[in-house]
């Protein structure tokens, strides 16, 4: 049965069929037919204040739920503004579908008003992209876009929509089947390889689990917990996987890498079997590759075959979905357990002793002072109020690393940040997306004063939609992470990192219509945060923290992860301005 509908109506119908309830977007000339069809349509449109934030909000929505986020922008500048958000979603494997307007098909290539080669520009920014040439192919393309975004290794998919494609009428028949013969998803894992992995795991004396964002994506948290408990191995989770194992779990030994814990990095360095699941041996994790896990055999489980052996050769590769592979692996391990469990008991006990010794040697403890507010202290107080249950959206920089070190998460999908791309400005719009996705949750946007000022206009989106987001600006008056590197590696010659004239939170809040408060003394920190959480609506807290605090431990760029520094190599003089 077919029905005569316009392209815009067909598009919205396909979105409804995909279960979309909310679009983050910004209208424009060529999208007018679509926005006309959205008038009084049940799908909610959230008007952000910049297209980049539409993509970030859609990512926040997707990361908080696992469902595909949708963003939309007009042709030309709208589409180019989206691009940073697309690359961000690509790097962190976040499922989003971006809909962009395009000039009339007859005008494409003529340098028409607000024309850009969106298809060409976003080719490298997306998992796949489409330019729709006729209304008839629209339903197939939309369903393919959602399928591609959400399956396999998820990622952003863009659909470029010329104005006439949205305008013209067409007989609509729902598409029930899509066929992408070249799109290969290997999710099951090779049975023989899984069996060999189980054997290697029981034979290891110093096993270590290295879990990444793939655990969160595939919903494998429960399997991960059972796995580490069964093999009684210490486990680290990467920046993208915080919460994949509850932070309070006895086997959890924090995050590895550049700002990871001493125990995690020493564990990675001394393990004899590294079991990597849903992770990609990022340079921020491995440090100098030649010195990374030098004594370890590597089992690498990942759904993306191109990640296997990309940075570190795998002794045993398994291509598959983390959840399905772990399930099967657990089953085989259990079968073999009676014969193997005790074989390396003394060595494994000694391994745990070592791990515990490293943990005790350099524990991750937030610095606190009576006279000034330490940034770590702010995170610790947010953590106290969250108690492992709130959604925390971070921006990029020092505060992000302190969050990763000190926030506890009892579940996955509570920690939302920009990991791979490290795009400043991500935190606030991501919180908008997360709060729309999870209206029941307490959402914190913990942001630096730099990143916050990149997305300040979203305060309008927050107040317009009554989103009760608690914004905590960890304000050191600097681009803190850049300042830290200038301090440590460029003789403290501070160049272009001072952020003067931060707007007064009380005034900024008043201007945008939300309560704002500046906190300057350690004694006021806790009451102020409690007041913010008690407030039924949004709240803006500007916390003035000590400006010269650095994130430690730190693995200097190019260093081995066992070569961490815990303080300034030499006394720091007053900054040279």
């Amino acid at each position, binding site marked *: 049965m077919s029905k005569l509908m316009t392209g815009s109506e067909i598009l919205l119908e*396909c979105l409804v*069929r*995909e*279960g979309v309830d909310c679009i983050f977007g910004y209208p424009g000339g060529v999208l007018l037919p679509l926005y006309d069809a959205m008038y009084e349509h049940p799908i909610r449109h959230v008007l952000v204040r910049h297209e980049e934030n539409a993509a970030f909000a859609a990512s926040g929505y997707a990361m908080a*739920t*696992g*469902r595909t986020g949708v963003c939309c922008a007009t042709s030309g500048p709208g589409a180019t503004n989206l691009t940073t958000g697309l690359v961000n979603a690509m790097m962190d494997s976040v*499922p989003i579908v971006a809909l962009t307007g395009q000039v009339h098909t007859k005008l494409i290539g003529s340098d028409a008003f607000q024309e850009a080669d969106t*298809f*060409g520009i976003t*080719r*490298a920014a997306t*998992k*796949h*992209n489409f*330019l729709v040439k006729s209304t008839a192919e629209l339903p*197939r393309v939309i*369903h*393919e876009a*959602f*399928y*591609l975004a*959400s*399956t396999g290794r998820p990622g952003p998919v863009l659909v470029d929509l010329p104005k006439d494609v949205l305008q013209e009428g067409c007989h609509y028949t*729902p*598409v*029930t*089947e*899509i*066929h*992408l*013969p*070249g*799109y*290969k*998803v290997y999710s099951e894992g090779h049975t023989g390889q899984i069996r060999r992995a189980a054997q290697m795991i029981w034979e290891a004396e110093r096993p270590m689990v290295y879990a990444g964002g793939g655990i969160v994506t*595939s*919903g494998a*948290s429960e399997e991960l917990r059972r796995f580490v408990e069964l093999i009684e191995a210490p486990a680290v989770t990467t920046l993208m996987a915080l919460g994949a194992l509850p932070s309070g779990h006895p086997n959890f030994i924090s995050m590895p890498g550049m700002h990871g814990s001493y125990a995690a990095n020493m564990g990675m360095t001394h393990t004899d079997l590294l079991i990597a699941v849903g992770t990609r041996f990022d340079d921020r994790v491995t440090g100098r590759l030649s010195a990374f896990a030098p004594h370890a055999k590597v089992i690498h489980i990942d759904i*993306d*075959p*191109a990640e*296997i*052996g*990309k940075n570190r050769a795998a002794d045993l590769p398994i291509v598959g979905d983390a*959840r399905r592979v772990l399930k099967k692996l657990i089953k085989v391990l259990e079968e073999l357990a009676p014969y193997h469990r005790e074989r390396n008991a003394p060595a494994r006990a000694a391994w745990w002793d070592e791990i515990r010794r490293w943990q005790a040697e350099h524990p991750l403890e937030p610095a606190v002072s009576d006279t000034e507010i330490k940034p770590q202290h702010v995170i610790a107080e947010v953590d106290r109020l969250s108690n492992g249950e709130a959604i925390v959206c971070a921006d990029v920089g020092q505060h992000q690393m302190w969050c990763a070190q000190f926030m506890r998460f*009892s*579940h*996955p*999908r*509570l920690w939302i940040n920009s990991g791979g791309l490290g795009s400043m400005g991500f935190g606030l719009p991501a919180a908008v997306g997360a709060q729309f996705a999870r209206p029941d949750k307490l959402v914190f946007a913990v942001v630096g004063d730099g990143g916050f000022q990149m997305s300040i206009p979203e305060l309008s989106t927050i107040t317009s939609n009554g989103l009760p987001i608690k914004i905590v600006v960890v304000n050191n008056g600097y681009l803190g992470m850049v300042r830290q590197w200038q301090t440590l590696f460029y003789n403290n010659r501070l160049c272009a990192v001072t952020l003067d004239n931060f707007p007064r939170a009380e005034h900024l809040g008043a201007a945008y219509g939300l309560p704002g408060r500046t906190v300057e003394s350690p004694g006021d920190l806790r009451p102020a945060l409690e007041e913010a959480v008690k407030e039924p609506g949004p709240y803006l807290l500007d916390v003035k923290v000590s400006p010269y605090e650095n994130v430690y431990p730190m693995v200097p760029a190019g260093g081995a992860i066992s070569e961490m520094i815990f303080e300034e190599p030499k006394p720091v003089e007053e900054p040279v301005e």
Partner: protein
Amino acid sequence: MLQTISLLLENKPGALLRVTGVLSSRGYNIESLTVARTVDPELSRMTIVVDIDPQLRRQVIKQINKLVNVLQAIDVTDTPSVTREMLLMRVRAPRAARAAILKEAEIFGARVVDSSVDGFAIEVTGETEKLDEFINVMRGYGEIEVTRSGVVAVSLESRKPRLSPPVPAGDEAKNNHRVNKGVLN
């Protein structure tokens, strides 16, 4: 090191851009690239010769195989395969040299496809090294102009591409394979 990749891909706008994008984004220089429709008009066969560090060859093949429009990418550098390249050459041939040029062309199995007072147009097919040699020889006769087709390859091993079957779309999908995606606490 030069590597020859044979690709089967969907004949769709942008497919070529995606493949070359994988190579250019990693800074690899393409030595030659040929592409044309197969027996099935919806598919194209592409042969790429590219200069890649031997250790990264597998990685590049995997990255190309990830592209949605690519049905199969195989490395035919070291596997049983036949590669050929075609060359068209214009050579200036004064009367005195004409007989010698024709003799050389015959040795290389080349064909004269046009003849004029000024000279010949010659077509020759073969492996890359043979064409290089032909060019060297003909240079000795004076000014030449050359157009090469780039390498085409056919694998001598039968490797059927593994194609994904159709999947349900929209409402149907929700009840099937995609339900395990969202995990809410």
